[in-house]
């Protein structure tokens, strides 16, 4: 018996007596070299990405096509480099088939207004601030289309911007048109530091988007006064000019109708103007519109004080007025009082008479 025995240690068997011979040592080193070679091979191989990884990094979510090749060539360079910001993503290009992948339900508005292509890129300020700008450039079929989507989405509480003829800004974003393009610069916050970058970005983009040959300002047509000029200025709510490219007022087929909102005293009214290709069509559409209103519960009322040729209709306190003059179809929509309807109709008529001289 051992008193004061040694602490228990597991039996490991006798230790090796013979020393490690040179052959054994060499073999060991050879194996270690092989291991190093394997390690080196592994580390080198990992730089050549597996095609699945390449595809995953390149393709991104389904549908987003790269802005490469002739198809997207015109727009993509616009988002190459902008002052004060660095790109946070690649340029992505969308066509009518894939637009809804990016903007989902909003695509409908663009698609019905002659949308051709959109490019998008995310940027962040180079200064180191953690902010993000999403810039969308929509290539529409014409300046009118661009104006249509611009005006159709005008937000409440927008501030007019002097950046371009059609431009407004909200707390965190800047919206404007440049010829047949509609642009949105959306920042992820309304901090002043971020907001201050919006206008310079807008200016830089405008500079990059040289107008296409033959393009006019959004509301112009060669040699003719633009529809906007048919709206009398007094009492018009600023920035309310809109263009409905198709199915205006819910009447199928009624296209290219400009509207502007007015506040006359307590009452509100919307004036509308549409230039048809010829007088016959203007008459036809007047009849169509009248029938449409009558079908929908409107009834004609006396219009002695209304301008000559105007048809005045009413339905439970809402008033409509329809006039034509030459190719022009114009009138008042959803006036909240008869007085306002008549007054605005008169103003529009005077304006039309002036312009058509």
């Amino acid at each position, binding site marked *: 018996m051992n008193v004061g025995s040694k602490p228990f240690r*597991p*039996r490991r*068997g*006798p230790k*090796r*007596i*013979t020393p*490690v011979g040179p052959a*054994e*040592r060499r*073999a*060991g*080193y050879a*194996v*270690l070299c092989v*291991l190093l070679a*394997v*390690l080196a*091979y*592994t580390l080198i*191989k*990992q*730089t*050549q*990405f*597996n*095609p*699945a*990884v390449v*595809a*995953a*990094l390149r*393709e*991104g*979510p*389904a*549908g987003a096509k790269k802005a490469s090749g002739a198809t997207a060539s015109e727009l993509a360079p616009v988002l190459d480099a902008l002052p004060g910001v660095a790109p946070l993503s690649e340029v992505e290009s969308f066509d009518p*088939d*894939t637009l809804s992948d990016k903007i989902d339900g909003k695509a409908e508005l663009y698609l019905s207004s002659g949308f051709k292509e959109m490019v998008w890129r995310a940027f962040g300020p180079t200064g180191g601030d953690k902010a993000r700008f999403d810039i969308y450039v929509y290539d529409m079929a014409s300046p009118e289309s661009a104006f249509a989507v611009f005006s159709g989405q005008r937000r409440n509480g927008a501030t007019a911007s002097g950046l371009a003829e059609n431009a407004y800004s909200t707390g965190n974003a800047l919206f404007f048109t440049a010829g047949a393009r509609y642009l949105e610069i959306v920042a992820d916050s309304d901090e002043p530091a971020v907001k201050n970058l919006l206008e310079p970005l807008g200016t830089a983009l405008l500079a990059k988007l040289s107008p296409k040959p033959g393009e006019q300002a959004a509301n112009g047509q060669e040699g003719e006064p633009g529809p906007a000029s048919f709206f009398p200025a007094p009492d018009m709510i600023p920035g309310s000019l809109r263009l409905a490219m198709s199915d205006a007022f*819910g009447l199928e087929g009624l296209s290219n109708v400009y509207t502007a909102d007015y506040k006359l005293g307590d009452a509100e009214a919307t004036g509308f103007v549409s230039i048809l290709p010829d007088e016959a069509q203007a008459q036809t559409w007047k009849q169509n519109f009248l029938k449409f209103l009558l*079908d*929908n*519960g409107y009834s004609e009322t006396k219009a002695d004080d209304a301008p000559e040729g105007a048809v005045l209709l009413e*339905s*439970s306190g809402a008033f409509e007025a329809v006039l034509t003059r030459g190719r022009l179809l114009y009138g008042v929509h959803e006036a909240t009082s008869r007085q306002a309807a008549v007054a605005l109709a008169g103003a529009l008529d005077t304006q039309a008479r002036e312009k058509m001289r």
Partner: protein
Amino acid sequence: MPIVTVRRISQGFFLVLFFWLCLAATVGGQWWQMRGWPINWILGLDPLTAGATMASTGTLYAPLLWSVAALVLTVVLGRIFCGFVCPLGALNQAFGWASQRYRKPADKVLANRPRPARVVKYYLLIFLFACALTGTLLTGIFDPLPLLHRSINLTLAPILDSGSPVLSLKPRHYASAWLLGGVLVSILSLNLVIPRFFCRFVCPLGALFGVLSRFTPWRIGKSTDLCGECTVCEAQCEGACSPSGRIVTGECLMCCNCLHRCPHGRIGFTTAPSAGGETPLPDLSRRGLVLGGAVGLFTGPVLRLGGLTGSNNNPNLIRPPGALDEERFLARCIRCGQCMRACPSNIIQPALTEAGLEGLWTPTINYRLGDSGCQVNCIACGQVCPTAAIRPLTVDEKRGRGDFAAAGPIRQGSALVDRSRCLPWVLDRPCIVCQELCPVSPKAIYTVTTFEAIRDGRGRVMAAADDSLELAGLGPIIAPLAGGDYYLRRSARPDEALRRISGFSGNKIGLVKAPGWNAPPESGEIVDIVVRLQRPHVDASRCIGCGMCEHECPVSGLRAIRVTSENESRSRRGRLIL
């Protein structure tokens, strides 16, 4: 540096490398993700996979060329792979060593004595080769490298994944992982009974290496017969090959423990045969070999008699995109689980019964499990398959673009709407989730709009205004009438337009103004509240079977739209549409 130290370093190195390559097999560019890590390199070293696929397909798939290295190494030096490289061998050895540590030397010698059952692995090897010759590849079930890949990929790796959002954003799931976990635990636990149990009795790769090491010029052996039979070497022998007696060189795992431990240094790795005598392989009975081969030749065709690769195929067996037709697939799949690990949607699952007994643990797709349907631009599964049972596709080939426009996209099957379960078809609930999510363009799911009267939605008009009606007789309605999907239909006046309901409070139903009605409703007139239902239909000529619809269908149990294997590209038989 003693060779056993080098051996331990090597085993540790390959074990760590193995675990790393398993963990990294996820699509992505970060250093802990796939990048270009050679995740199939260890599988490629496997000459059993190479040889068996050569037997079953008549070709050697290029990445398996690496097995030449292991083969030549074994032919010249013996079972170096088993002792220095094999990660399952390393794990088995570690578990065995831990369980033997505190035992008496005499017990250790007993544990490492040669047992007759060690011949089983040779019969298994013959069986697997014979089976492979008939076109049925079952090596993956027993071959340690695919086995360990599968076990780690489908049990340990997802457990680690769920522990860290870095590895995987969402926890990953694998059907019947319990079985795989059980197998892994069993294999490792058996080492507590007999060390390196799997290596000594089951491993067909080891058996192959044993056969290949028949002519090694160098092998372990005693330098003199004048050893005192102290059996220290036997106590440490991992291969149970009797180094102190007549050594069975084909069973020697090259652990070099005997060489290291012999108190007098009498064991060496030399060209001379062992002084105690040597024999290349254990006593294999010819009867056993013939039987093993015959059973193998019989098993393959028997497994196919059920017609599972032909007319009796399981329609719920959806294979990953790029998979070969079933017969060729089963001749190549080694059930390594790499595709299951790499799939970013986590929808590739090990089959239990879906593909029959022959298809055990082969990849099948389960769209209910996982994150989404098969992502249209993902080509991970084919790109990580070590034997091309799933062909490596390019995105263009998968989507049918570019050069492959004439061939069209790869279809995994076709979705079909279950009209007995779909919300707009039977529950009068608007839903077009499947149509919204269909990723192909133009969409393979289109809707047909119809209006159905809702329950308790019939009322009598009490009062009518331009933009509202007061109704009586309506039952309790909980549907969201103002949501934009509900309309009012005048029962006796079908020519009148349906007017959309804009609001509902008490008995008053608000109606959207346009379009209006030609004649206002009379008092007492019957009206119905109808719901606008967009009922989904699948256009089988466009459906690629990606399962996005099935995955997202809100009928969460048995989905109202399900993908089945009809119309899958890989099989001519299942064509739905010409």
